[in-house]
């Protein structure tokens, strides 16, 4: 019996969401009176994996097969299932990312496990029932889900768990082979194309997000959003009407039918706050709304607001950040 954590790596680094997942997994292990082992996928370095000790991980399994650098559902599923069997894992924790959800769902069938995605809190394990809180209705509600299977798989929503940092603790890194064959790589990507990210911050992983709506009047004005995002170290995003008219790409569309985000800070510029947009952002810790219409519904969901013209307000905010730094 142990807890297995799936850690995603990119370019040698452990992803921020995986540091959160590792912290979540080690706390679950503590709760169950056991230890947390991680299995790493993607391109990792031994030194970075050893640092997962800071998140409470005691051991990291790593298969150095080069084809695992990119996401391959078949191979990742087999690798993680093999690690789960080796460790006798009762609970498997992964990120609620595109990779985590794609692998987690296949894994749940293979391991006959109960699966909860979008998990936002540590589980409760009392009276013999194992319950987790998850986001539902596109962020408009939460559900307490009882996992009835002997094995449980939890996909943890980004930014919902604070990453632990116990300085100086290291994990042992153990090489691990799941004896993958060519057939396991049948769905390997032919090509991987990375998008340009403003300021290099990925929207789904971002701590801070600056988002623009139709009130920005046109794509030629987006430099105002980008300047503020750059000063804040934030990702940029947009509302659905903006991506529908191609001012911004679809992967920046935040909302019920776009990306759901839960950053610490969400700044909405010229977005009125349709219920579908709110659904995608209302689990953000702090929401700032800038809109010239004082009746904009978004102000009701905001923590801070400025009633004013985005073209005047945004440069002032960017300036103020620069002064602060």
């Amino acid at each position: 019996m142990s807890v297995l954590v799936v850690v995603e790596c990119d370019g040698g680094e452990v992803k921020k969401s995986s540091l959160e997942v590792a912290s979540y997994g080690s706390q679950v292990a503590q709760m169950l009176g056991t230890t947390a082992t991680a299995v790493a996928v993607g391109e990792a370095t031994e030194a970075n994996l050893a640092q997962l000790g800071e998140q409470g991980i005691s051991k990291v399994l790593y298969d150095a097969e080069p084809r695992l650098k990119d996401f391959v559902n078949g191979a990742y599923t087999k690798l993680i299932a093999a690690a789960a069997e080796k460790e006798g894992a009762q609970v498997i924790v992964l990120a609620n990312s595109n990779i985590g959800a794609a692998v987690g769902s296949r894994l749940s069938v293979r391991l006959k496990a109960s699966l909860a995605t979008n998990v936002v809190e540590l589980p409760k394990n009392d009276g013999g029932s194992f319950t987790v809180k998850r986001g539902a209705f596109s962020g408009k509600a939460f559900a307490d889900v009882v996992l009835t299977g002997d094995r449980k798989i939890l996909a943890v929503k980004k930014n919902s768990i604070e990453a632990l940092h116990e300085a100086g603790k290291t994990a042992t890194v153990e090489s691990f082979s799941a004896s993958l064959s060519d057939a396991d790589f049948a769905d390997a990507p032919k090509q991987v194309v990375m998008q340009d990210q403003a300021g290099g911050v990925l929207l789904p992983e971002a701590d801070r997000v600056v988002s623009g709506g139709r009130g920005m009047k046109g794509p030629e004005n987006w430099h105002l959003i980008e300047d503020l995002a750059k000063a804040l170290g934030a990702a940029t995003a947009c509302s659905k009407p903006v991506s529908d008219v191609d001012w911004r790409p679809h992967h920046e569309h935040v909302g019920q039918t776009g990306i759901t985000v839960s950053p610490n800070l969400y700044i909405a510029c010229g977005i009125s706050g349709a219920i579908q947009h709110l659904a995608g952002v209302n689990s953000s810790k702090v929401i700032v709304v800038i809109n010239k219409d004082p009746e904009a519904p978004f102000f009701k969901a905001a923590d801070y607001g400025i009633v004013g013209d985005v073209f005047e307000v945004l440069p002032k905010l960017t300036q103020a950040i620069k002064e602060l730094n």
Partner: protein
Amino acid sequence: MKFLVCISNVPDTTTKITFTPDNKEFNKAGVQFVINPWDEYALTRAIELKEAQGSGTVTVLNVGEADTEPNIRKALAIGADDAIRVNAAPKDAYFVAEQIAAIAKEGAYDVILMGKESIDYNGFQVHGMVGELLGIPTVAPAMKLDMSGNTATLEREIEGGKEIVEVATPFVASCQQPMCEPRIPNMRGIMTARTKPLKVVEPTGEGARTSVAEYALPPKKQGVKLIPAESAGDLIKLLRNEAKVI
């Protein structure tokens, strides 16, 4: 080529979410139900591909009770050829996946499409479970899907980019924008939908692996603190000193 498109019946995107007094169930009273918006991408793309091939069928599948039939008819009006309803309230993702896998196996479908997730339970699970139950590849979430013979080329979204993946039929894909422009039914479609076959079957399988103990709404916000536009820079100080987020 035989396409199977799985649709779920969800509250309209403008719905204010409330629950029954014991917080055990979603309160359906007065709520308009629609085809899950993500599933519309799957449905339209399947119809487009069938049309491009000049042959084949698009079958719509829904796991739901009789009240989902208006939306099944809508899918038929958009252009699907026939429909199957598994007569059961969806219990959880695994339960739904078992029903889909059983139907997919029996009908020997080549391509199984669905939305990335449903906008009510947001599981993002069913596609992978179906793929694993059938032992075939899953591509999730897919932003583009083209077919050439029995080979599909898909663009899969990854954090920060996309991957181009080739898979042979049969496979499962969960769809999202910008795959296609979802269609709306025209009058001719609505008229012909009435006579298209809709088969009702009973559920099979082992059943659910999770259950919902209770629903809750997010805590109410304290109320907005307004900062005058002239002194917008003060907001930054508040975000640092009061909210402590920068």
